[in-house]
């Protein structure tokens, strides 16, 4: 057991390394709270990737062309890959994969609340790629410089792959927006439903965000929620205009003075309601996750049994050779 003064000294040294932009690697000393914060954030991020496969998977069999179908399949497969990179990064901090999944399946761990909204039409796949992946990229690009090495490296891979996701989504929106009246309406309806939840993806306002200050000091986070949200609105508003679609916010207006778009108030009651499990699809998503996990148990067991049998067979063969 270390004396408290030693701990304070170690913490100072640790902060000095962070301030000098040094990366922290798995076996380095780190404060318990840094480790816990990272495990929480990385595993939530991993859960979001995995649960994020569900709303999109809903449309794979009904994609309107083979081109769209292979793209959507590849995208959903990417999300699985991203979840795996991230679980891997969380495990370098001493977390066990099974415990992380338990946390998800029991509802103790959070995932991005955006995935608790339903995908009602094909245009939703376009809106998700454009807006949801767009917001995710905005959040994730600064994470490539996060102070924890394995997380930063995972994010580099994720960001490289996400840009295809956003482009395929925008292409879907563009096709619909330039299509028939009914298609254009479908695109507008998807934008109407996904716009506000996308803005909520950046999390509570800075004043209400309890983790922000410490995470910024540790250089896990590089920008605040509100900074990133503003950047997203600034980039996305002209993209909507190009599509000829209307963002469902009567207050949205370019502000010559600030050089940014002003936008209306976010319905935080809705946000907290969805976070606390009362969104349109929370139960459905968790049920699908749990079912997939439980129904896969025999496969995981069988693979282990098979591997063990082969190991024993090989060992017996080796023994024979020796004899």
């Amino acid at each position: 057991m270390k004396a408290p003064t030693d701990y304070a000294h170690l913490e100072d040294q640790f902060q000095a390394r962070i301030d000098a932009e040094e990366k922290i690697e798995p076996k380095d000393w780190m404060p318990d709270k840094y480790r816990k914060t990272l495990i929480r954030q990385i595993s939530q991020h991993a859960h979001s990737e995995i649960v994020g496969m569900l709303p999109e998977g809903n449309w794979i069999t009904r994609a309107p062309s083979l081109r769209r179908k292979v793209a959507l399949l590849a995208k959903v497969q990417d999300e699985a890959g991203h979840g795996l990179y991230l679980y891997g990064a969380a495990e370098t901090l001493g977390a066990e994969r099974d415990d992380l999944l338990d946390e998800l399946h029991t509802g103790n761990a959070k995932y991005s609340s955006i995935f608790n909204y339903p995908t009602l039409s094909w245009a939703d796949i376009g809106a998700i790629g454009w807006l949801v992946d767009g917001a995710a990229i905005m959040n994730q690009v600064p994470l490539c410089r996060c102070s924890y090495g394995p997380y930063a490296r995972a994010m580099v891979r994720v960001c490289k792959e996400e840009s295809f996701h956003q482009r395929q989504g925008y292409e879907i929106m563009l096709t619909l927006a330039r299509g028939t009246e009914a298609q254009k309406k479908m695109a507008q309806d998807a934008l109407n439903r996904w716009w506000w939840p996308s803005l909520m993806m950046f999390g509570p306002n800075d004043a209400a965000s309890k983790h922000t200050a410490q995470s910024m000091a540790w250089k896990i986070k590089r920008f605040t929620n509100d900074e990133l949200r503003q950047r997203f609105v600034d980039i996305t508003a002209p993209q909507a205009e190009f599509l000829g679609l209307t963002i469902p916010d009567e207050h949205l207006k370019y502000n010559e003075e600030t050089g940014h778009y002003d936008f209306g108030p976010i319905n935080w009651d809705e946000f907290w309601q969805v976070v606390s499990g009362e969104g349109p699809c929370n139960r459905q998503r968790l049920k699908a996750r749990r079912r997939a996990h439980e129904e896969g148990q025999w496969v995981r067991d069988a693979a282990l049994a098979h591997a063990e049998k082969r190991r024993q067979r090989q060992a017996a063969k080796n023994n024979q050779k020796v004899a």
Partner: protein
Amino acid sequence: MSEKKNWPLWEIFIRSKNGLNHKHVGSLHAADAEMAIENARDVYTRRMEGVSIWVVESEHITASSPNQSESLFDPANDKVYRHPTFYNLPDEVKHM
């Protein structure tokens, strides 16, 4: 339910093209080495990132500890004579 037994963790190394080293890219779980290679193919080489894969069970890796880094790496700090710039030569001498 089965007793809680998990697939072991494997570290994955990928050679991105011939002529380059295998490089550590991350880890994953698999029941055995063969499955680790198959999973690594799906997880780490979806966009032609590799031509060869090595997998090794994480528990078989012995790593140096950050606490040792002084004793391991510091002795090299004061051995600047191992670097070419330590030696003073006149500018007229070319190609050296």
